């Protein structure tokens, strides 16, 4: 009877020990993974807050390059992007295996590349995006893949805006960047589908590029007939993109969005009535 009891005890002790070892191993891996994931969330949240602040400041004639009245808001956006880039880069360099195992490598790389772009480190951002390898492949998370594909176009859009504002470049240089940006953003949009959330972002970015183009047509000393031809090209593109934008955002119940872009670009398009 006693022997039988001690055998049962031994079995129980072995089972408990095995369970404890398994629990310990799991706990170590668990703690690292949770810590890495939480840091990435912090980077994502910091990036989103910065972007929200920057977007809100748009209507007050501010950009990251133009501090002044809105300096405080943009300063906080810059800090947010810097923090996001720093965390994401640290994770990518030191915790790559954990990120890859959990499928978080591409989200981290995307946050870093997008943050670098907004911080004005255009070449670093472009290089990171263009060398993203599997994160631009079909198995990558769709939003992140599309953003990495679009990033060179976003950088070029900023270049066009800067050239147009500086006024030291000729119209052809600005237009080359406008066309480059529109082309890359369209390619990225073709990779997504209108049903994907990132599609609206790519359309909106193209409308923003159009607005830069519109200004360039008037500020680069163009004269007719060349100016009229350029304006006609701009108008055709504007109408095409606003039609597409209309088909997406009016279904999303956001007619004010179309109203804003349509008014900004001098169009009469609204969500009501015929397109």
């Amino acid at each position, binding site marked *: 009877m006693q022997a039988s009891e001690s055998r049962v005890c031994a079995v*129980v002790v072995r089972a*408990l020990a095995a*369970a*404890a070892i398994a*629990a310990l191993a*799991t706990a170590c891996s*668990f703690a690292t*993974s949770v810590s890495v*994931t939480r840091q*990435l*969330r912090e980077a*994502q949240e910091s*990036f*989103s807050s910065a*972007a929200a602040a*920057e*977007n*809100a400041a*748009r*209507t*007050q*004639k501010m950009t990251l390059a133009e501090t002044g009245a809105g300096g405080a808001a943009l300063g906080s956006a810059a800090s947010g992007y810097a923090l996001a880039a720093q965390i994401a880069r640290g994770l990518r360099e030191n915790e790559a295996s954990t990120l890859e195992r959990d499928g*978080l490598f591409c*989200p981290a790389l995307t946050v870093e590349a997008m943050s670098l772009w907004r911080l004005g480190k255009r070449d670093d951002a472009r290089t990171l995006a263009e060398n993203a390898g599997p994160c631009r492949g079909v198995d990558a*998370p769709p*939003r992140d893949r599309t953003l990495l594909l679009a990033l060179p176009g*976003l950088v070029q*859009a900023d270049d066009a*805006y800067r050239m147009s504002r500086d006024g030291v470049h000729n119209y052809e240089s600005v237009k080359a960047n406008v066309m480059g940006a529109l082309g890359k953003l369209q390619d990225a949009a073709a990779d997504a589908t209108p049903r*994907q*959330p*990132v599609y609206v*972002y790519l359309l*909106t*970015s193209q409308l*923003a*590029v159009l*607005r*830069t183009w*519109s*200004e360039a047509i*008037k500020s680069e000393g163009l004269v007719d007939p060349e100016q009229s031809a350029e*304006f006609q090209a701009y108008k055709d593109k504007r109408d095409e993109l606003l039609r597409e934008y209309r088909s997406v*955002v009016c279904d*999303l119940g*956001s007619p*004010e*969005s179309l*109203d*804003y*872009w349509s*008014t*900004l670009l*001098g*169009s*009469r398009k*609204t969500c*009501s*009535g*015929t397109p």
Partner: protein
Amino acid sequence: MGTAELIIFAIQAAIRLAEAARRALVDSTRRQALTLPLPDFPAVIDANSAADFYKSDGSTFNVAGSDIQKWTDLVFSGQSLPETAERDFVARYLNDRALLIFRKGSTTAFRSAEDLGGVAATQWTALLEVRQWRKGGDPNPSTLQRLAGTLIEVGVDYFQRDPSLLRTERPTGKAIQSFLSAIGDVSFSMEKPPRLAVSLFGALAESVQANPELFGADDASRLLVDNVTRAVAKDAQERIAAAGDTNTEEGIEAWATLVFRSMLRSAGGTVLSAPGLYLGVEGGRPSLVETVGRALLGAVIQEDAVHLGTLFTQSAMDGVVQSALRAVAASPDLLGIDHSVVSALVRSVAGELAESSQQVGPDLLPDAIRLVLDKTAEHVDLLLPQIGAPPRPLLVTASRVVLERLAKPDPAEHWRPRFAKADALAVLEEVLDQVTQNPGWVTPPAGTASSPLAALLDASLKGLAAMPVPRLRPASALRVLRAAVAAGGRRLELLDVDPASGERLATQVLDAVFSTLRGGADARAAWTLARDEVVTAAAIEALERLADQGVTSERIKAVRGTLLAVRNDVGSGAPFDLEGLGERVSQAIAAA
């Protein structure tokens, strides 16, 4: 299941749960929406926008020789307009654009440039918050799917003795199915919720196993579980997401499980007897059960850090749940227009009474909450004069006044009766009845700091504290205190201050009885009159007779004189007759 298997089972369940939690966190990070920034562009609607319009869609307004044509040409030639001209140009543009849209048979709200830059910008920037996957396109398993393994283990543990409880044709099976469906719909976005879901499932499984009869009516029990799960899980997960530390998160989880279990166990009978009333949903508002569930969870997890600690046991919470459901069923006005009244009421009772009730007795608070809920429902016309407004806080204030006085001895007093929970509740009930008859009890008269209720309780307790030893037993002191409250309800003069002694008349009445019957050196008189029941009865008689006939200092002196005479009579060997005492006191009062 033996102890060893239980330990192993628990370890395995914990590991699986932790892994499920980690995977849920990873998934939510991968799918986390990002707000995306746009490339730089001129974002303000200005002369450039206007010029584009008059060169394209609005060309019919661009009449030769007009200001419009002049301004448009200037913009196209790369020149800036003077500030006033630009303002006029943009204003004309917005008008003409709205007119054109109208002519084309469309409509749009006319917006100023500021509106478009503000309100409309808020709309388009909202579209820049971008999810990783489109709706329904996320390939990662849901939180519920991640939890499946752990939930199965918990289910096996509970239902292995009677698997038929899980059959979906039976009400118990429908209840469990309903829980899983509801918990799957709750948006768990952070890392902690899986544990909450497992705790709630454990509570449901335990209730189903222990009381399957509670889940008797098919659709009603399914709806009950659905309502309660959504209310408690959603509310708790929001609080967990906002919590700053693990201790707080675990506390919320434990409270949520307690409330959930109570709602199932206690609400079952009540709710299933009138499912239309409790589970009906009208106008998109939450059901009555859902409202009560949220209210109670909000009450026990207060943001102002009132630590209710161990005040709510499971059975105490069961009682509060039943009382709250009864109260809102009896008086639907308690729900309020947005179902906020009952929630505010429970929260305010718990918040106001938590500290003092703990000093009176550790489990008093739930009963105090029940009492206030019951009385509020009985007197809803008085306490809720306006539908939708918060209830008048009369009962909460009165309860606080009572419990504070029963809890905290006056530093100047050497003794105060120590009331048990039942005694304190009896005083509280008497006071609440008085207050519902005369709300003036809790309103301090002009120029004074104390309400009549506070003043009377202080005066009565002072009278009790001053009595010579041996003092009254708590049960006797309670009877005297209730009589004093009842007498005070009839005679406000009991609060008058006697100019000679500086004491309130209520104190003087009690002193007249206690010092006379328990004072004196005559052993034979003391043997009869100092008995607890005699002193108590005499005090009650004195209070009632004075309340009947009117209270003055002179009349209290007459009472004292009568009691002295009785003492002398008894000391001389005369028999004591309580009824006769009342008559003599009455005559003395009338003669004074």
